[in-house]
Structure formats: C-alpha cells, structure tokens
C-alpha cells in the first residue's frame, strides 16, 4: 500500500550545490610495511607501490587518493606529468545503473580542467565480488595542450555505486604509461570493506 506523503525536504537556493559531503580527517592504520592498510575501520587494501604516495585530502572529491609525479622517479618531468589513483565512495552522478552512472560521471569529472572526453570504451568486469564496469577514455585539454588517460571502475557497495579511478596527465606529445593501469587493477583487487556502509546500516532495520 502506498504511503501518503509523510516528510518534505525544502531546499533553498539551488546554485552552486556541492556533490560531496565533508568527511572527518582520515584515520589510517598502516600496520607493518607488508600488511594491508586499514582505513577508518571501513576499508582494507594494499597500497600501490612507491613512488605512489598517499595524498593528504583537503577537499572531498575522493575518499582515498594516491599521487605520483614523473619527477618522483627520474628527475623533473615535463608539466603536466602526474597521476592520481583514487577510491571514491560518492562518485559524480546518481544512477545505480552502471552504464548510466558513467555517463553522468563524465559530465562532471575533471570539470575544472576544462577537458573534452573521447567516447569512453566500456567493458563489464567483476570487482568487489560483483558486477562492475570498466570505462576508459582520454581527456583532451586543447588550450594548454595536455591530455589525460582516464580509467574508471564502477562497482557496487551494497545498493550504491562506488568508483576507483586512475588519471594520468601527460603533455599532448608524450606517450601514456599504460603499465600504471596495473597498479589500479591490483589496488581494486586488494580492496575490501570491513563493515557495512553508512547507507547499508541505515536500511538494515
């Protein structure tokens, strides 16, 4: 039987809404060097190998992020020459269908960088113990002549979509280093949840 309208949320002033909710300072239990990392008692994963380094997050676009620059290994690299590998509990978009979600995601992802995405290639895969979608594309920043290789893995945590991604920036005349995508795959393969999410707990009763 349908309920009558019970509660009403009124939202004033629609401009400039943020998509992500601020989170507390992450608590990290790194344990011994070879052991998996435990994050806020929520996630467990093997960190990507050096020179990837944990990014201190001062915004909320990611839940967990690692960063590496070309000069981490072989001297100063040409700008832009850097990569980000991240897990996002609330990726852009809202659909719980993975194909629709990736469409919504790429409308917002890297919006501040003013890039144009090529049509992503999509592949169904398994991740986090279930159905997932791998999307890969190249973003072009035609004014600064930069480009970015972007691979995103959309998966489920309970009913909600979460995402892992790798963004590798390069000058337009340089080749991408696709072997970094292996670091993303290993990160995802090692990733597990230690407890039900906030949203799962909310609907358990």
């Amino acid at each position: 039987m349908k309920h009558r309208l019970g509660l009403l949320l009124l939202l004033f002033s629609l401009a400039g809404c943020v998509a992500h909710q601020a989170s507390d300072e992450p608590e990290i239990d790194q344990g011994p060097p070879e052991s998996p990392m435990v994050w806020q008692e929520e996630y467990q994963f093997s960190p990507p190998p050096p020179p990837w380094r944990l990014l201190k997050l001062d915004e909320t676009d990611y839940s967990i992020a690692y960063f590496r620059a070309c000069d981490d290994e072989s001297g100063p690299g040409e700008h832009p020459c850097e990569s980000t590998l991240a897990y996002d509990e609330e990726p852009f978009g809202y659909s719980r269908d993975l194909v629709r979600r990736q469409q919504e995601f790429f409308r917002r992802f890297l919006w501040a960088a003013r890039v144009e995405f090529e049509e992503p290639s999509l592949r169904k895969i398994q991740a986090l113990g279930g159905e997932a979608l791998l999307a890969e594309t190249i973003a072009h920043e035609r004014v600064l002549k930069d480009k970015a290789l972007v691979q995103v893995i959309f998966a489920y945590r309970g009913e909600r979509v979460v995402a892992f991604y790798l963004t590798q920036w390069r000058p337009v005349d340089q080749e991408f280093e696709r072997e970094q995508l292996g670091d993303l795959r290993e990160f995802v393969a090692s990733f597990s949840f230690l407890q039900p999410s906030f949203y799962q707990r909310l609907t358990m009763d």
Partner: protein
Amino acid sequence: MEGHQRNLYLYERFNARVVGVSRDETSTLQHWTESLGLTFPLLANPTGYLGINFGTQHKGFPFFARRTVVIDKWGKIRYTQPGSPDYREILQLLQKLHGEEVQK
C-alpha cells in the same frame, strides 16, 4: 542537488519527498533540471516570499541563502539547517521521523 538525487531512493523508503526552491524563473530551472538530470520538483519563487518565511532571503540579495528544511506530515518543521546539506544527518533524521510516523 546531485547528492539529493543520489539519495532519492532512500527518501522514498522513508516516505519523504524533496522539493527545491529558488528565486530563478521556471525557464532557468527547466534548463538546470535537464542539464543535471534531476527528477524531483524545483519551485520557482521569483517574488521570494517562501524565502522570507523561512529566513533565507537576506536583505539586498537577489537570491536565497542555502537552507534545508524538513517538514513532517503534520506540517511541523522538524529540521532547519543553513549552508550545504549534511546528507547523512538528513537521512538519519528522516529515518527517525519515519519511525515515528509508522508508530503513530
């Protein structure tokens, strides 16, 4: 807005509906709704009286300040919070209010 759209299925479970209110004209809101893919209603209130009633229309400003208001089925305001929405706090409140609604 995207956060609310993402949580719509949970609002539905808690028997809640979400409505946005703005001083923009309907044509602006129509464009905005389509570009963001929003499926909940946005109300155009160019005269601003709703904002005045809810304390979001600051003197001299042509737009509302952000505020989230939760009204229960009996018309009572149960929550009002300025600024960016705290989605988790809102969901926890809706869960609690829905529990009250079911018990009555």
